[in-house]
C-alpha cells in the first residue's frame, strides 16, 4: 500500500522531481507569472525613453552646441548665449535623471520644460534681429526636451508646450520687426523641427502600445504552457490513482456487488467512508500544484486512514512555500489531531492575505492612450503572504497541541466532541 501511494506524490512537483512537474513548479504562484510580463513591457518602454534621452542630449551637445560655436562671432554677447546653453544643459541633465527614475510628475516635468522655454526665449531675444532664424540654436533643444519630459503625459500637454515655445520665438521675431521673408523662414523651421518632434513623440506612443500588446501575448503564451504542463501532471496522477483504486475501493465495491459485504454493517459503512474520503483526496490532488506541506499533511491523513478515520483535505488559493521549521510545527499539530480523531477529520489549507505586500501588476488599460504611463506602474495589491492550516475532527477529549513557534500561531476551540484547530503561518 505504502509503495503504491508514493506514485502520485512523485507525479507532483517536489524538489527532486523532473519533467513536466518541475516545469510547472517554475510558475507555481500566479503572482510570479504576472511579474515578468509587466517587467518586459516596462523594459521596452524604458528603452524608448533612453532613445529619446540620447536624442535630446546629442541634439543639445552636437546640434545646438556646434551651431553656437560656429556662429560665435555673430552674437553681441557670446557669454550670455553660452550661459543660456549651460542652463539648458543643466536642465536637460536634471530632466534625464528624473525620467530615468520613472515618469516624473506634473510639477517636475513642467518645471524643467519651463526653464528650457525661458532660456530659449532669452537666447532668442539676445540674438541680432535680422539673423534670428539663421542663428537660433536654442529652439530645437527646448522642443526636444519637451518631448522627453512630456512623453508619457497627455499629448495635449506636449502640443501646448510646443505651441507656446513656437509662439515665444515668433513673438521675439514680431518684436524685432517681421517681414515676409522672416515669416516664411519661421514657418519652414516650425514645420521641420516641431514636425519632427511631434512625429517622434507619436512614434514612441505607438511603440508603447505595441510593447504592451507583446507583453500581453507573452503572458497568454505562458499561461498556455502552464496549462499544458499541468495537464501532463494530471495525466500521470490519474494513472497513479487508478493503481490506488485497485488496492482499496475496487475490492470493496466487488464485495458489495457480490453480497459478501453488507451495507447495513457499520464496519462496512466505515470502510466505505474511508474509501470515499480517499477517493476525494486523490481527485483533489490534481486541483492544485501542491507543495511539501500538503504532502506531509497527506501522510498524516494516511496514518489516520489506516485506523479507519475518513479524512478530507482541501486547499483554497495558491499556497505559499512554508519553510521547514514552521512546516514541522504544523505537521506536529496534524499528527496530534489525526491520532486523536475517531471517525472523521477535515484538513484545509487557505492562503492568508497581507495588505502590506506589493507586487508588480499589469494594469488593464494598455489600449487607452491617455493612461499609457500607468500601464506598468507598481501598484499595491494583496498577495498570499501566509497560510492557515485548519483541522476539524471528532477527537472527543481535548488534544495536546504543540507549542506555537517558528512563525506559526496555533489556535483552537472545542465544540462538544468536535475540535477545531488552526495553525497560521505568516512570512516576515
Amino acid at each position, binding site marked *: 500500500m505504502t509503495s503504491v501511494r508514493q506514485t502520485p506524490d512523485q507525479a507532483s512537483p517536489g524538489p527532486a522531481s523532473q519533467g513536466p512537474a518541475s516545469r510547472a513548479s517554475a510558475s507555481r504562484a*500566479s503572482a510570479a507569472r504576472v511579474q515578468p510580463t509587466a517587467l518586459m513591457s516596462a523594459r521596452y518602454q524604458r528603452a524608448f525613453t533612453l532613445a529619446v534621452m540620447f536624442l535630446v542630449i546629442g541634439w543639445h551637445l552636437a546640434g545646438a552646441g556646434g551651431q553656437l560655436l560656429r556662429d560665435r562671432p555673430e552674437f553681441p554677447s557670446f557669454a550670455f548665449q553660452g550661459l543660456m546653453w549651460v542652463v539648458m544643459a543643466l536642465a536637460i541633465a536634471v530632466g534625464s535623471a528624473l525620467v530615468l527614475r520613472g515618469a516624473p510628475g506634473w510639477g517636475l516635468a513642467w518645471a524643467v520644460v519651463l526653464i528650457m522655454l525661458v532660456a530659449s526665449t532669452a537666447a532668442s531675444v539676445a540674438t541680432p534681429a535680422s539673423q534670428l532664424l539663421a542663428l537660433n540654436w536654442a529652439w530645437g533643444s527646448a522642443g526636444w526636451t519637451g518631448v522627453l519630459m512630456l512623453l508619457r503625459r497627455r499629448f495635449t500637454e506636449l502640443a501646448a508646450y510646443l505651441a507656446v515655445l513656437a509662439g515665444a520665438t515668433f513673438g521675439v521675431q514680431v518684436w524685432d520687426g517681421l517681414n515676409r521673408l522672416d515669416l516664411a523662414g519661421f514657418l519652414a523651421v516650425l514645420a521641420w523641427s516641431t514636425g519632427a518632434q511631434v512625429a517622434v513623440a507619436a512614434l514612441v506612443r505607438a511603440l508603447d502600445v505595441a510593447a504592451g500588446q507583446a507583453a500581453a501575448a507573452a503572458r497568454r503564451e505562458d499561461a498556455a504552457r502552464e496549462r499544458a504542463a499541468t495537464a501532463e501532471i494530471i495525466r500521470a496522477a490519474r494513472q497513479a490513482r487508478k493503481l490506488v483504486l485497485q488496492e482499496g475501493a475496487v475490492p470493496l465495491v466487488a464485495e458489495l456487488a457480490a453480497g459478501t459485504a453488507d451495507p447495513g454493517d457499520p464496519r462496512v459503512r466505515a470502510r466505505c467512508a474511508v474509501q*470515499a474520503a480517499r477517493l*476525494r483526496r486523490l*481527485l*483533489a490532488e490534481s*486541483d492544485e500544484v501542491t507543495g511539501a506541506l500538503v504532502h506531509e499533511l497527506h501522510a498524516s491523513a494516511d496514518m489516520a486512514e489506516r485506523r479507519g478515520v475518513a479524512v*478530507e483535505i*482541501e486547499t*483554497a*488559493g*495558491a499556497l505559499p512555500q512554508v519553510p521547514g521549521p514552521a512546516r514541522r510545527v504544523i505537521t506536529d499539530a496534524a499528527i496530534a489531531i489525526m491520532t486523536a480523531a475517531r471517525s472523521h477529520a*477535515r484538513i*484545509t489549507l*487557505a*492562503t492568508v*492575505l497581507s495588505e502590506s505586500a506589493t507586487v508588480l*501588476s499589469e494594469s*488593464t488599460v494598455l489600449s487607452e492612450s491617455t493612461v499609457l504611463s500607468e500601464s506598468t506602474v507598481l501598484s499595491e495589491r494583496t498577495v498570499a503572504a501566509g497560510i*492557515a492550516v*485548519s483541522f*476539524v475532527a471528532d477527537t472527543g477529549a481535548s488534544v495536546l497541541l504543540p507549542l506555537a513557534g517558528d512563525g506559526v500561531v496555533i489556535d483552537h*476551540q472545542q*465544540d462538544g466532541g*468536535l475540535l*477545531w484547530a*488552526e495553525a497560521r503561518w505568516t512570512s516576515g
Partner: protein
Amino acid sequence: MDQRVTVAIIEDHPVVTEGVASWIRSDPGQRVMLVHTARDLAMLTGVAADVVILDLELSGELVTAQIPELVAGGYRVVAFSGHTDPAIVMDTLDSGAHAYVSKDEGREHLVEAVLAAAADRPYVTRSQARAMLADERAARPALSEQERQALLLWFQGMSKASVGRRMAISENTVRQYISRARAKYAATGRTAPSKDALLARAIEDGVIKASEIAPYRSFARGPDDRPG
C-alpha cells in the same frame, strides 16, 4: 393549493438522479416536489419548474456555458457537480447559477440550496466559500475582513454556530456576512437575471445596502457583457 417548490433534475447518471430524488423524498417537510428528470438539456424544453438541479458534466461535456440560456428561460439553477475546482465553481456562479453544491455536499446541502434558490436567497456551500477565498481575479469584489473570516471558518469545516462563537457574533450575523459576500459576487461579472434577482432579494432582506454594491457593478460592467 400546493406551495411546494418544483424542481427538475438534469443528470446523465440514473443512479445519481435516484439518489437526489431520495434526498428530496426524505425531506421531513416535503418542501420540494420533483416534477421532471432529464438526461440532457434538450429534454428540459417546455418543462415548468422553479429550480433546475444541473449536473455540470453531461456525457463528458461541461455545460457551464449553457447556464445563461437556462437562466434566461426563467429557471433558477443549482449546480450539482463532482467538480470542486474553484475556477469551475466561479465560472458557474458567474454564469448565473444560484448555488453550487459539490457531490460530497449533496446530502447535507442540496435540498436546502434548492429552497434558498427558489426564494432567490444566497446559499453558500463550503465549496463555494473555497472558490471565493481562492479568487484572485482582478475584478473580484472587495470583501470585508469579517466577511472573509466568516467564509474562511465556514470553509474550514466549522458549523455556523461554531463560527459565531469563534468570532464572538451571533449565528445570524455569520449568515449575514456569508450572504453579503455572496451578494457582492452576484453584483460582479456577467449580468444575468438570476443575479439581479439574488441582489434585489438581498437588498430587500437587508443583507446588503444598494450603496455597498453600486461601485462594484459599474466597475465590472464591460463592453462585452452579455445582454440581459
